[in-house]
């Protein structure tokens, strides 16, 4: 029965994936560009979810990890032009991950508000370094990013970049899905529920909390590298506090502690940005109101609400089956 089910889902999933990868052939270049940005935001949301959604640590400076990945890629691609993207992407992720690990160590003893303040300060420091270290980063004039390449094939258009960014994103989504299904993911959730209880169960708090930061930073660093390729030109202005707040809004709206929620949150953020493109101040108002509304009325986000709805439907179905007298539709 399970094998038939797997076969059936594969029959549906594979054509959908084929259709998805045919999108650049039929969609406009701008929509393909938006899909690429969306994929970057999905990775950022997943990264942020590791630290906020799964381990309950608040990070208000996550744009800094995006900046680290982006600048690492731009600088290395410029100064070592022979490095292909499949070397640069993991290097950017590891660089950001290492910084995340080192940041995670000193903030281990902190809770709630204090972690938020430290990560906020971290974001400001990274932004300021990008601005002031102009000999390396070109300050607020920004850095041009050379195109990614594979042999002689150059990813120098949004449609070509689609075939780099989307597969990387899908692979990392699957990897994230696996991580949260393992002992590591269960340890993260246990820490979020109660650090005391988790410790009692033998979970090494220091190790897992620091690892969450490192993993989160790795994902966001890779997202930063892809962002740099997509934008072709990066400046410190692209990694501000408001960007970090947008990322938090994504996972609050989409659903904390959920990979699926990360995707929904990224789609909604991108949609709002596009619909309100000419009204930047209204955009900020909409985000702010959405954040407040969701935190009060839907704290588990859209994915949490969908899960609750499905559970309620299942429970009602079970109830109605139990209430049905034998002989009436009962096997």
């Amino acid at each position, binding site marked *: 029965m399970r094998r038939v*089910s797997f076969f059936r889902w594969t029959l549906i999933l594979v054509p959908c994936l084929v259709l998805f990868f045919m999108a650049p052939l039929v*969609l406009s270049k701008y929509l393909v560009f*938006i899909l690429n940005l969306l994929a970057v935001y999905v990775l950022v949301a997943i990264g942020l979810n590791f630290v906020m959604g799964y381990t309950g640590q608040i990070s208000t400076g996550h744009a800094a990890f995006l900046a680290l990945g982006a600048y690492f890629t731009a600088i290395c691609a410029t100064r070592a032009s022979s490095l292909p993207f499949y070397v640069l992407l993991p290097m950017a992720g590891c660089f950001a991950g290492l910084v995340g690990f080192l940041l995670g160590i000193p903030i281990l003893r902190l809770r709630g508000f204090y972690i938020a303040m430290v990560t906020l300060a971290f974001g400001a420091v990274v932004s300021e370094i990008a601005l002031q270290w102009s000999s390396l980063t070109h*300050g607020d004039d*920004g850095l041009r990013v050379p195109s990614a390449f594979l042999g002689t094939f150059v990813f120098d258009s949004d449609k070509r970049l689609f075939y780099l960014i989307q597969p990387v994103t899908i692979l990392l989504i699957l990897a994230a899905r696996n991580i949260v299904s393992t002992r590591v993911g269960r340890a993260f959730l246990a820490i979020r529920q109660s650090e005391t209880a988790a410790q009692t169960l033998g979970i090494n708090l220091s190790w897992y909390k620091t690892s969450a930061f490192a993993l989160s930073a790795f994902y966001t660093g890779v997202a930063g590298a892809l962002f740099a390729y997509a934008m072709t030109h990066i400046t410190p202005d692209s990694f501000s506090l408001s960007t970090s707040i947008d990322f938090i809004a994504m996972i609050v709206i989409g659903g904390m502690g959920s990979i699926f929620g990360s995707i929904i949150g990224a789609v909604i953020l991108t949609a709002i940005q596009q619909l309100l493109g000419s*009204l930047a101040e209204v955009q900020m108002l909409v985000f702010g109101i959405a954040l407040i509304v969701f935190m009060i009325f839907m704290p588990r986000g859209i994915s949490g609400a969908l899960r609750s709805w499905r559970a309620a439907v299942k429970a009602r179905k079970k109830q109605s089956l139990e209430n049905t007298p034998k002989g009436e539709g009962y096997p």
Partner: protein
Amino acid sequence: MKATGRKAIFVIFLFLLFFGLVSRGSAAEVGVSADSVTVGCSNSFSGPLAFCGLEMVKYGAEIYFKQINDQGGVQGRKVIMKSYDDGYDPTKALVNTKRLVEQDKVFCILEPQGSSPVEATIDYLEQQKVPLLFPFQGLPLKGRMVFTAHTVYPREAEIVVDWMVQKKGFKRIGMIYQDDAYGYTYRDTATPRLKSMNMELAAQEPVKRTSIDLSAQMAKLSQDNLDALWMILTPGPGAMAIKEAKKEGWTKTKLFATGPLTDESFIILSGGEGEGVWGFSDWPDPVHSKKPAIAEYRAALQKYAAGHVPNRYSLFGYFYAKLFAEALNRAGKDVTREKLVTTMESMKNWENGVIPPVSFSKDSHAAEQSGFMVEVKNNVFQPLSGWVSLENGKLVERPLGE
């Protein structure tokens, strides 16, 4: 697996539903229809340059287009302007520009603002062969499809150095400059220019873009016994510099503002301390000038935005919209992007009544290559010179024509 598969399909379906599987056809020329031409720009309507952006687009270009649309448009086509806010963020500028070109299908990009946001879009626009017309910034820009507006910073720097040394006899010139491409351009042009005259910058102090306190830099500069201090700053820090100079009791040193800084707004910000400040101006006085073309601008502003105060930014927007319309008209009914560019390259000595006659060529896509010196008197910039330019390396002055 069941739940994962369902979620994956839902996600893919979400993408496809949201974005649509629609193939897009192409028009005869992008952005041009039988009765309209659509132009676009990404500009600052929020953030540090919001005032400039709103003035040049909403109270400049759009005012001009309303005026000509009411008169029947250009070659029977109304000109429509679409604009998005980038808040001086280069990332948003690129996203907006791609949206304008690929989704809104604009004919050209007209009057974007800011060196960094504009630089972020240039490679893309050249690749797409979309004209980039008259950005409000002063770095030299290279590109087949790029036409610049006011005098570029290196040319302005050369003119000002020559004028200060040859006309005013200044020996000790100092500089306080924004620590980015804007400031470096003036510094790196002035230094060799002065060296060719066996001189050098007597003092120089960089200022970070986000700085609001210039007291340390001004205190150092007050020790240098300068004839002139050249301020390569934005209005906020520029006003701070003037206030600090007043506080330090400067009497001998002349403060000199760059072209982008020379506007009444920074005089207002300095709280009336700007009396006697000199500057390089690209524009006649938008409020007091008696030139018919400037009076026409004021009348249009009064008609379509009654009560709005004229200023150099909205005059910029109005003037360059007018120049665009002139080029569009000359290109004829069957206009294309390429034809617009070649038409503009053939424009010679276009008399406009605002700035010296505009000429373009294959090798020169710069609308302005001159300016005139001004001094603040009673909170108004009064002319100190005629139109000053460099021709064959020599300083040339022509009457202002007021």
